[in-house]
């Protein structure tokens, strides 16, 4: 049933599916039956679009790398270059508001709880905790802020041309930012790790930017991290160099460290480092939401609302659901739904129903349609 809704999407929106340098990419699909197909390649965009309509996948991924032979086994593909990918995922940001609808369960004793998951189960102490994440506007808001900081660092510090940056909503709880052209796409793993750590200000040592002369200390405010941290602290742009007494140096160092941690971007650095990574096809549907992995302009992402702009599944038909796990109130295309409690039976428009089923919060019991 949901597969048919996905097919209808790919049929009507096929023109929106766009992958740069499609013939050089490896593709991977996860089907509705759970089967995974890897090492697939397409001769052109049309072929890819036809495939998505013919056999709509639950999730569609493509490689960040461009290969000589994308269909070959891993060792024989022949990497040409690779997009520099940054993954901003609200699951890593641990925001109370974003996690307010999430449900966690201890695999040790079965205890259930709502909200931000604890590191250890409060009743049995086990660290084996699984989480059914929820998605709300707050998740997008906190991720958006990280994307803003990331783009600033990429363009101001790392010299990335705005035209080389591709922002997409992941279709779930965050964003992907890709640098698709320029010298950084030629970098190897190690160098990518350095970029990721730069963006996160991880391992930053403020003393690297402070030098001493006979009369005291000088802070080099040309450093992007230092300048942003100062701006955050003082609200104005610093100029060139700053002279400090030993005491000022001590105080400022401490203040800068805490300020830098706010002005740096929080990303998943493992993703950035991995040139063998597969990532969601822009404008394909996400298998945990039914939302579109929307490709966005550098302006769009600031205002994008997934519950309005990324809903990929049509409203028709209505579907009957049984709720498996508590559902908080949510809106879809302006219409409010919920809250629903466990065991409740409801009839919802297809987009809201698929959202709950794909998130693992409800199951279909009789679609009430002949589709």
């Amino acid at each position, binding site marked *: 049933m949901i597969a048919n809704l996905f097919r209808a999407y790919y049929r009507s929106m096929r023109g929106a599916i766009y992958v740069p340098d499609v013939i050089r990419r490896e593709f991977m699909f996860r089907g509705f039956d759970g089967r995974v197909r890897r090492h697939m390649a397409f001769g052109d965009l049309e072929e890819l679009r036809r495939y998505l309509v013919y056999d709509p996948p639950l999730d569609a991924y493509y490689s960040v790398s461009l290969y000589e032979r994308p269909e070959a086994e891993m060792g024989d593909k022949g990497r040409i270059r690779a997009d520099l990918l940054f993954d901003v995922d609200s699951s890593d940001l641990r925001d109370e508001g974003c996690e307010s609808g999430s449900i966690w369960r201890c695999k040790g004793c079965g205890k259930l709880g709502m909200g931000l998951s604890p590191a250890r189960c409060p009743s049995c102490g086990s660290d084996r905790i699984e989480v059914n994440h929820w998605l709300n506007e707050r998740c997008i808001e906190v991720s958006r802020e990280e994307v803003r900081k990331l783009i600033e660092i990429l363009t*101001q*510090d*790392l*010299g*990335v041309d705005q035209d080389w940056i591709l922002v997409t909503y992941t279709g779930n709880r965050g964003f992907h930012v890709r640098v698709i052209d320029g*010298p*950084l796409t*030629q*970098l*190897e*793993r*190690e*160098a990518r*790790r*350095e*970029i990721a*750590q*730069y963006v996160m*200000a*991880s*391992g*930053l*040592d403020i003393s*690297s*930017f402070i030098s001493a002369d006979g009369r005291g200390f000088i802070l*080099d405010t*040309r*450093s*992007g*991290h230092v300048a942003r941290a100062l701006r955050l602290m003082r609200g104005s742009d610093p100029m060139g160099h700053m002279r400090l007494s030993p005491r000022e140096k001590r105080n400022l160092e401490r203040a800068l460290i805490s300020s830098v941690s706010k002005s740096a971007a929080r990303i998943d650095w*493992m993703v950035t*480092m991995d040139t063998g990574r597969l990532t969601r096809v822009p404008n394909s549907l996400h298998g945990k939401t039914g939302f579109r992995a929307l490709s966005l302009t550098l302006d769009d992402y600031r205002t994008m609302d997934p519950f309005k702009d990324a809903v990929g599944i049509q409203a028709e038909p209505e579907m009957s659901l049984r709720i498996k796990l508590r559902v908080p109130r949510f809106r879809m295309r302006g219409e409010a739904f919920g809250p629903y409690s466990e065991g409740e039976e409801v009839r919802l428009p297809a987009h809201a129903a698929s959202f709950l089923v794909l998130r693992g919060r409800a199951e279909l019991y009789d679609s009430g349609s002949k589709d």
Partner: protein
Amino acid sequence: MRELGSHITSPTYRSDELISVAPFSKQGASLLEGVTLEDLAEDPSLEEVRSLARERLISAITGRPHATRSPALEVHSFVAAKLIAAEAGRSVLSRLADYEAKRFLRLCRRLSLEQLKEIASGTFNISTKGDLWIDLASYLRGASRIGGRRWRLVNRVVVRGYVLVDRYEMERIIAEYVRENVLRTPRVELPPPLRRIAEEVSKLMSERAPKGTEVKGELPPCISELLERVRAGDNLTHQARFALVSHLLERGWREDRIVDLFRNLPDFKERVTAYQVSHIARRRYKPPSCGTMRSWGLCTTDCGKRG
């Protein structure tokens, strides 16, 4: 017959000093014009080249620097030594790479900043600006292989795609490019006179290689990969060495046996290695976890163990 320097059209600038210090440079390559692999191997007038190539390789293995000769001789013997090392095996090539990188670093102080910049841009495509900025991608290509906090990008002034460096740092980065230049030498079919030198240095290398470093039992994949790399004479980072040593100590290896293992490395110093190994043993440092190894970029595959 293949001409080794046939891709060079017209050298615009030539300085004897620059070429002797940087035989790998574009200016140096211009001296190869018209010289073939067969000439290098057999031309009687190039006997001196073969002899210096051999000397370079032996110096790389024994650690004694050769005395600088004329620009043409330096360039020809540099190229011949690379080709012979590629034939002689990974550990010889790795030794030569380290030798040539360090030789450049030692001698490049004689060059002017302008000459350094010229080598950077002309030979390695490193773009430089003012006093002294180098482009981000080039910086990373060189510096991500150098250990230490000061080299990490996060601790550098980076503005609009350029990284601020001083002259010494620029020299270090170029030296890393030299290392890479040698390591990337393709293996080609060598004429007999050069092949004989390859056999000779390969033998010399294996005589000096550690013995009795076979490992019993299964090692985790990342650790066994590091072990392979040490055996091949790869220049490992400080963290990689630490991971390997702490792991082997935990498996009950004796300290001297571990020190022997490292004899293969291009920058091996017995005293320093022995001190480091015994330091790790004394402090009973635990081997890094899989997660830590990953964060150091040492695990390319699954660690093969939990935690």
